[in-house]
């Protein structure tokens, strides 16, 4: 019975994807097929409709539209530019200066905004043309932009960590957020090393060092934006706000900053709201479709079957983590991050907790792993944004991506096998 369900699910899902069916629709339609094998027609359809609605009926998920909105406000509201100016003064003089500026800005942006798409489009449109002028190839520029944008998914605040908290059945969002800092920064540093080596090899001229006064003045300029980090993360970690409340505060804060910087006015604000709501709707449909699929899977007892399958291969922690990482890398190529987290967390989490791995640690492994998939065709959403902003083709980006991928895989391996990288910071705060 389970074999039949898995067969129907996989076959219909892959078939729908290949004919160009949108991913969310492929997920929901294949779930319907699978459920209708064992459940009568009308109750089956009703259950799916209900799962879709209740799947997004969660106060924790509310943080997602708000972080998307505040990210949108930051892009239009002059915050991204100020963060870039600060990064320029800070690391611009090193070899590969502009690439490093891109990486640092993406990390800073990641630490105030919740999504990678916002950062990839902001950095790509502002820094892309400059990089080209200084002799960076378009492909390398995009490759740096998209890989560094994904560090923002691990560095809090992060929408995907909220999704993981939901999928894991309530892992603490505050702990997940703190756990993301070191792995995110570590990945960023590895990317910077690759960028420096690339710049040396391609003889990119280095820039002059900015005077300390310039570093200081750009820092002061960026300070109101960076304060958001203190308010949001400080509030969540100290337990003053829930993540959702903090995200609403982030919206109000960025809105006020945007008004003060005179970038946002009553004219473009509705437009920003619409952009944020349609992005939210895309994410929410993916979430509700994935929640239905995840429900169908557990209804058909598929997670138990897969976990006992994995456990029968080996009971060695290192081997199983390696197997799970390879599987996730493969899944990440074909599936967007949100559905992958919602569908595979309930499958893998019981296996790893049995081996004594902390759910917080596993969450960071999973997100960091799936970040790599976001930059690969055919379903790399961040890749598409980066390529679109730079007006180039995917083929030109693939070659320079390889060394950056290797850097990400090294970082993933370290984070997987050294739990302290994720768990040390939360433990300092007793989370």
């Amino acid at each position, binding site marked *: 019975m389970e074999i039949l369900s898995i067969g129907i699910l996989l076959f219909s899902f892959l078939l729908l994807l290949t*004919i160009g069916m949108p991913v969310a629709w492929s997920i929901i339609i294949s779930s319907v097929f699978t459920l209708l094998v064992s459940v009568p027609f009308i109750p089956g*359809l009703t259950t799916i409709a209900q799962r879709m*609605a209740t799947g997004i009926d969660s*106060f924790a998920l509310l943080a997602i539209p708000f972080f998307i909105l505040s990210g949108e406000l930051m892009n239009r509201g002059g915050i991204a530019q100020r963060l870039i100016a600060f990064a320029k003064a800070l690391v611009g003089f090193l070899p590969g200066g502009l690439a490093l500026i891109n990486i640092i800005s993406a990390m800073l942006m990641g630490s105030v905004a919740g999504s990678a798409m916002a950062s990839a489009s902001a950095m790509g449109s502002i820094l892309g043309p400059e990089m080209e002028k200084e002799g960076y190839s378009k492909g390398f520029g995009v490759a740096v932009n998209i890989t560094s944008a994904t560090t923002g998914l691990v560095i809090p605040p992060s929408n995907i960590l909220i999704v993981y908290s939901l999928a894991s059945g309530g892992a603490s969002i505050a702990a997940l957020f703190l756990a993301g800092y070191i792995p995110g920064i570590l990945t960023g540093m590895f990317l910077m090393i690759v960028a420096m080596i690339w710049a040396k090899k391609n003889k990119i001229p280095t820039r002059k060092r900015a005077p300390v006064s310039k570093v200081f003045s750009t820092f002061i300029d960026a300070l109101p934006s960076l304060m958001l980090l203190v308010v949001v993360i400080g509030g969540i970690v100290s337990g003053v706000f829930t993540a959702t409340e903090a995200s*609403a505060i982030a919206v109000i804060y960025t809105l006020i900053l945007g008004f003060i910087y005179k970038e946002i006015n009553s004219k473009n604000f509705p437009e920003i*709201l619409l952009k944020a709501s349609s992005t939210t709707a895309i994410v*929410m449909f993916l979430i509700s479709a994935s929640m239905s699929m995840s429900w169908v899977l557990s209804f058909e007892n598929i997670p138990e079957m897969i976990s006992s399958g994995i456990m029968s291969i080996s009971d060695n922690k290192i081997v199983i983590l390696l197997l799970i990482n390879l599987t996730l890398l493969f899944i990440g190529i074909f599936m967007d991050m949100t559905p992958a987290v919602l569908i595979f967390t309930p499958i893998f989490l019981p296996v790893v907790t049995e081996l004594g791995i902390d759910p917080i640690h596993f969450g960071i492994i999973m997100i960091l792993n799936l970040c790599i998939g976001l930059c690969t065709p055919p379903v790399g*959403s961040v890749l598409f944004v980066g390529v679109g902003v730079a007006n180039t083709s995917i083929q030109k980006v693939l070659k320079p991506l390889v060394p950056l991928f290797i850097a990400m895989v090294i970082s993933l391996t370290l984070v997987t096998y050294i739990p302290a990288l994720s768990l040390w910071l939360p433990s300092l705060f007793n989370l």
Partner: protein
Amino acid sequence: MNLIENSLNAILEKILVVILGIMVINVSWQVFSRYVLANPSSFTDELARYLMVWLGVIGTAYVSGKKLHVAIDILPDKLSPKRQVRLKKIVNLIIAFFATMIFVIGGSNLVYLSYILGQKSAALQIPLYVVYLCIPFSGLCIVFFKMCDFKKTS
């Protein structure tokens, strides 16, 4: 047909902007009432959650109409233009069919069941069928958009 499509789009846009606007005000009020007034409001949590369900479900119709859902076009792009058109029509038909099945039929049945059972939300005492009404509504919009698209692709 085009006129209806454009005005439906405009209406959906307004609905989405208003919902997100209310959500922001609503959660900000929750924070304000809890920390400043020290008198946490009892309804904001529930209202925000239901608004998000509406935003997600009605937004799905809007996004389907605008064709913003991510799809993998590698194989379709390799086909001849004539076949691409045919494939697009098939994809539209499948979406319209399943929107009818899940959103319209499944959703209406869900509305009907919660109406019969008289289920109400805990804090606001809103009948749950009102919350679920967005599902068949969204389904009808999706079917309409996909039919427009079907006629347009040629």
